[in-house]
């Protein structure tokens, strides 16, 4: 049908382009929409939000108010922190912390030797930070320095005594063990005809070097360049916390590897011994292990070792048993093909484990190791029960000082120690998550 007088304009209208989508209702987007979805989605949720926000506000405000707003920052003794002397309600008494700072950090370490502690800390940071950052090269050298050389240096600095002798002792023991190992290998080689004179020569040489080192130590020739000895009972504060935690975790690694391999071994006696040690230690609280090390170990030895050494032995065995289970988890995650591949290449057990299996397993359990370290760092507080003054013990000792006795001293001490513990543990747990995410990249889809 046509209309003669129709205009030339098109009869129907068709849009050439798609209509712009209408904006969503204002109640669904932006801050209001977010709040409706996440805070006030139902009357119950609204109530929870309000109550929760109030409690959170109260807690955060109490903390900020106490530690910053009402806090006292300078002063010489308790008078600075008493309500009636200051004329207002007083918060944290920070001068108490400044005055006790040395005690919290070093314990009773002699004042003129505290630079040694600082230096140890700086060297530790310089060696540890590159080790923790994955992109920094020379990891092997770095690890040898941190796990091999640094402990001796730290012993030199923290304990004192001859500077050269500890190095000679360690070198001597390594040489003696290597020498005996090589000589045994030579004797075994003679039986199947693969012995070479080079092994004999190296073995004898190593043994000679080791014996010479021991003789030098005994002769007292290198007693001269020495730092004054600081007995461990003078150590304290954060220094002890860090020493116990670090020694514990470093010693736990070899103990853990040995026990984990022992538990997976095919030799019944070795396996039984490993399982017995692991389960016995994991079944009892750390404090009983510490009591064992402090009171029982001296009975079993001819000479009672230093109190700190006893605690370190207890902590190392304890964390070693837990580490063994962590490492066993890593070992179980290695596919059987890796073991079979190594065997097919003709590698013997130490090489198979050292070159193929352990590097993969240990890499897998780095987050577990960091978590173990966090646990150990927290557990070091227990040493204060066996009369070794760590950070927490130092804090408790500080409360009893009449010069600083005030109603807020206690809370200030808790705030300070709490912030330190939290800062350390929180940083380490973030690092553990970071490593975990990095390791997961290969598995992520």
């Amino acid at each position, binding site marked *: 049908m046509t209309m003669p007088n129709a205009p030339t304009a098109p009869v129907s209208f068709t849009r050439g382009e798609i209509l712009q989508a209408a904006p969503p209702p204002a109640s669904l987007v932006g801050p209001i929409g977010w709040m409706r979805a*996440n805070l006030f*989605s139902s009357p119950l949720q609204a109530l929870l939000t309000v109550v929760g*926000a109030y409690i959170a506000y109260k807690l955060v405000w109490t903390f900020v108010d106490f530690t910053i707003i009402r806090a006292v920052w300078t002063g010489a003794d308790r008078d600075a922190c008493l309500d009636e002397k200051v004329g207002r309600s007083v918060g944290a008494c920070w001068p108490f912390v400044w005055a006790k700072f040395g005690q919290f950090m070093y314990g009773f370490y002699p004042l003129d030797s505290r630079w040694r502690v600082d230096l140890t800390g700086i060297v530790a940071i310089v060696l540890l930070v590159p080790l923790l950052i994955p992109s920094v090269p020379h990891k092997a050298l770095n690890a040898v320095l941190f796990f091999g050389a640094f402990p001796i240096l730290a012993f030199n600095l923290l304990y004192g005594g001859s500077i050269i002798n500890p190095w000679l002792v360690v070198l001597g023991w390594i040489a003696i063990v290597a020498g005996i190992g090589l000589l045994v290998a030579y004797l075994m080689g003679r039986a199947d005809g693969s012995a070479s004179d080079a092994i004999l020569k190296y073995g004898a040489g190593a043994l000679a070097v080791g014996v010479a080192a021991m003789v030098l130590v005994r002769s007292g020739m290198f007693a001269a360049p020495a730092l004054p000895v600081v007995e461990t009972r003078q150590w304290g504060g954060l220094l002890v916390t860090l020493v116990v935690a670090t020694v514990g975790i470093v010693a736990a690694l070899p103990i853990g590897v040995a026990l984990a391999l022992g538990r997976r071994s095919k*030799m019944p006696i070795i396996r039984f011994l490993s399982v017995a040690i692991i389960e016995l230690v994991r079944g009892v609280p750390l404090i*009983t292990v510490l009591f064992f090390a402090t009171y029982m170990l001296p009975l079993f030895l001819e000479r009672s070792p230093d109190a700190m050494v006893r605690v370190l032995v207890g902590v190392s065995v304890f964390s070693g048993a837990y580490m063994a289970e962590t490492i066993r988890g890593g070992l179980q995650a290695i596919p059987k093909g890796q073991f079979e591949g190594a065997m097919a290449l003709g590698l013997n057990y130490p090489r198979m484990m050292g070159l193929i299996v352990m590097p993969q397993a240990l890499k897998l359990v780095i987050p577990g190791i960091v978590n173990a370290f966090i646990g150990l760092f927290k557990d070091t507080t227990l040493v*204060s029960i066996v009369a070794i003054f760590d950070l927490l013990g130092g804090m408790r000792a500080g409360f009893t000082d009449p010069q600083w006795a005030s109603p807020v001293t206690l809370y200030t001490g*808790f705030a300070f120690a709490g912030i330190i513990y*939290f800062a350390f543990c929180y940083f380490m747990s973030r690092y553990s998550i970071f490593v975990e995410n990095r390791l997961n990249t290969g598995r992520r889809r």
Partner: protein
Amino acid sequence: MAIMTDGTVPARGTSATKVAFFNDPKVRSLIFQGLALALLVFVIYSAVSNAVTNLSNQRIAAGFGFLDQTAGFGISQTPIAWSESMSYGRAFVIGLLNTLLVAVVGIFFATILGFIVGVSRLSPNWVISKIAYWYVEIIRNLPLLFQILFWYLAVLAAMPTPRNSYSLFGLFFANQRGITVPKPIFEAGSGAIGIALIVGIIAAFAVRSWARKRQAATGQQFPVVSTMIGLIFGLPILAYLASGMPVSFDYAQQGRFNLAGGMTLIPEFVALTLALVAYTAAFIGEIVRAGIQAVSHGQTEAGRSLGLAEGRILNLIVIPQALRVIIPPLTSQYLNLAKNSSLAVGIGYPDMVSVGGTILNQTGQAIEIIAMWMGCYLTISIVTSIFMNWYNARIALVER
């Protein structure tokens, strides 16, 4: 295979050089085990011989004879009768009971709080999930001993003096000396209530298993939950009324200087329990969260498409599957709590370690006391593991 110079192939099983005896894996394993055994024997021998010398030097007689001697020290919380003239053995038993008490109470409340924390972390409510997140972060990153001391020295010490106790409904009081609650007094005939409770629990579970079987067979449902609640609570109440109301409560009265009557929980117990509950709940919360997240979202969606209500999806689909993931790590948290209760020694709550430490200092019997500690803790660990393994096996996925 090597070809000999004369062109023949060597017979299978022979080789040019004979393998030395120590390269035989069997012999080698025997050698290593023999060495380990020899080392062990040497360590034990030297430890024992040193211990004998040291003990005789210190004039300490080895053995458990000291347990019969008079202890002569007071204990601040005694579940069973105690006086200073009783023996060391009984003191140790009281310590063990106190450890078990704090462990059981702690596990109960830590489980409840932990589940609340875990569910809160997954809450769609932003404020609630953030609070739960920071609760977990802060609690997990502070040492437990620090927290125990904080509750004991900072929180409970800030409580008012007994004169100005905080009071809830006039029934519960909190002050520096602990928390006072009404004390139940059982008179003659109250045994019937206990029997009724046990009968009620057994009957309730019998009804549940009967109802399940009937539902599986016929599809008919039965109001199980209300019946169970009725049996467990109703029967003891009936027995209470029938036997002439033999249980009364001794309420604490606010005196001029102190509270009189009631049952007081000592501050050490309160502080230790609060710290253990708060600490373990943070770990349990993470376990619960991981367990719930491990149930794939498809399960929830499938439940919805079947037309189930949200509550039933949670009860019938999500929780049973989440529990399988939750139970094994939950077991180790329970064990941790029991072991961590040993930190009681830090604030002087008379648990096994604290009482044992006192005995150790008085008698010097280090070997015996430490052996008793380890034996008790290992027993607790093994019993808990066996129970939780049994429970785990019950709820585990039954596959073909």
